[in-house]
């Protein structure tokens, strides 16, 4: 883990957030799940700068550099499901990681609905991590079923539906069927594989 002493950059924050796992799926980070929407860093003026004394002789001697105010870090997260009980756990995990990365920074972690989280936000790495964790990633939608239009806005809700069969994350077979549109977590459905005779969970397309 990196600990940054000087001014912190958004890239460093993104890298740190990529080390924060989903609370239930340790192989997949919240970045790869597409939960992190935005990171902004604002450098607050130090009291000396605010007083116009940053360049005063003595400033450096007292070990205070011109840009030595605290960083204000704001992270926007998108809830996967509105009622997801893991939201507060994620918020705390992000806060803890960033306070470790940049001690003294002001950290604000906010959930927003400014855009709806969609399974399309899961990265290829995230999809691979889901598979390795025994979950079927959401099926890639065909061109006619792209849930987002050209400008990136969600399309008609009628396109949201569960596939009758998904690829089994254990054996790769397509001989599977939907058992239950609801599962042990709000974001998942339950399927059964006829080839390896195992049940598995799949991420619901939302």
């Amino acid at each position, binding site marked *: 883990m990196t600990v940054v002493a000087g001014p912190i950059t958004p890239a460093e924050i993104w890298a740190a957030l990529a080390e924060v796992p989903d609370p239930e799926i340790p192989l997949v980070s919240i970045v790869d799940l597409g939960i992190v929407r935005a990171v902004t860093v604002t450098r607050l003026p130090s009291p000396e700068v605010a007083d116009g004394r940053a360049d005063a002789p003595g400033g450096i001697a007292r070990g205070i550099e011109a840009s030595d105010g605290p960083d204000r870090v704001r992270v926007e997260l998108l*809830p996967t*499901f*509105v*009622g*997801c*009980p893991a939201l507060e756990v994620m918020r705390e995990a992000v806060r803890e990681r960033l306070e470790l990365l940049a001690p003294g920074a002001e950290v604000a972690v906010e959930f*927003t*609905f*400014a*855009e*709806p*989280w*969609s399974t399309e936000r899961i990265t290829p790495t995230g999809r691979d991590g889901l598979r390795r964790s025994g979950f079927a990633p959401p099926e890639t939608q065909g061109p006619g079923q792209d849930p987002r239009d050209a400008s990136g806005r*969600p399309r008609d*809700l009628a396109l*949201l*539906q*569960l596939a009758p069969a998904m690829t089994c994350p254990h054996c790769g077979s397509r001989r599977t069927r939907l*058992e*239950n*549109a*609801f*599962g*042990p977590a*709000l974001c998942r459905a*339950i399927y059964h594989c006829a080839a390896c005779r195992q049940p598995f969970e799949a991420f*619901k397309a*939302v």
Partner: protein
Amino acid sequence: MSGPAALSPRAQAALEELLLVLADDEFVLGYWDSEWTGIAPLLEEDVAMSSLAQDEIGHARAYYGLLGELTGRDPDAIAYDRDPDAFRHCRLVDHARGDWAFTMARRYLYDTADATRLAALAASSYRPLAELVAKVRREETYHLAHADGWLRRLAAAEGEGRERLLAALAALGPDAATVFTPFGSEGDLLKAGILPFPSVELERRWRDAIRPVFAQLGLPLPGAAADPARGRTDHSVAFRWLWGEFTAVRRLDPAAAW
């Protein structure tokens, strides 16, 4: 309007009423649904009802959260520290859980009505509400598919299943349209564009949406609300019991974290 600061006092008061209605409907229905955890007729449905309940109570929490931003009140306090008479859920969700057919009939009536209401609110001028509704609608799509499947299954069942469904629709029919009970402050909501269409128009759209399904299944379409003016007050004995249940922990120890 991007947030609370952009609202006139009249529009804010009306919005508070709307948010309370949206939240209470989801909250109360979520608690009724949660009663199936452990006793649903199939294991799959036990999981489904628990998941539906968690979704609805989560939606309620988000609406109470928007209300909290307007009033400065803690969402938990809004949810758990009110007397039963201060709740503004509709009469449709005021009934006790009932049997499985009753639960599915109510879910179908509520989910279709709520979908009509949310489709309108997705274009609300109050941006925090429109954004939340956009997310909620994606989740409610799965609820609607679940209720739709069960309505068709029960309607097609011979004997007891269909009989129980018909009995449930007879009991719930007069209260189904209370989802669209007009607000006292509806004029202010319409004027501000917070509610893009009047309740009577939403009720008409809902009937247009469910009419072909009911006709296809040979089911009686719900009539007009029995007592629309009191569609969100005068709560039942059953609700008062539920209120006692869902406030029990809070009343025991208001500071408890759980």
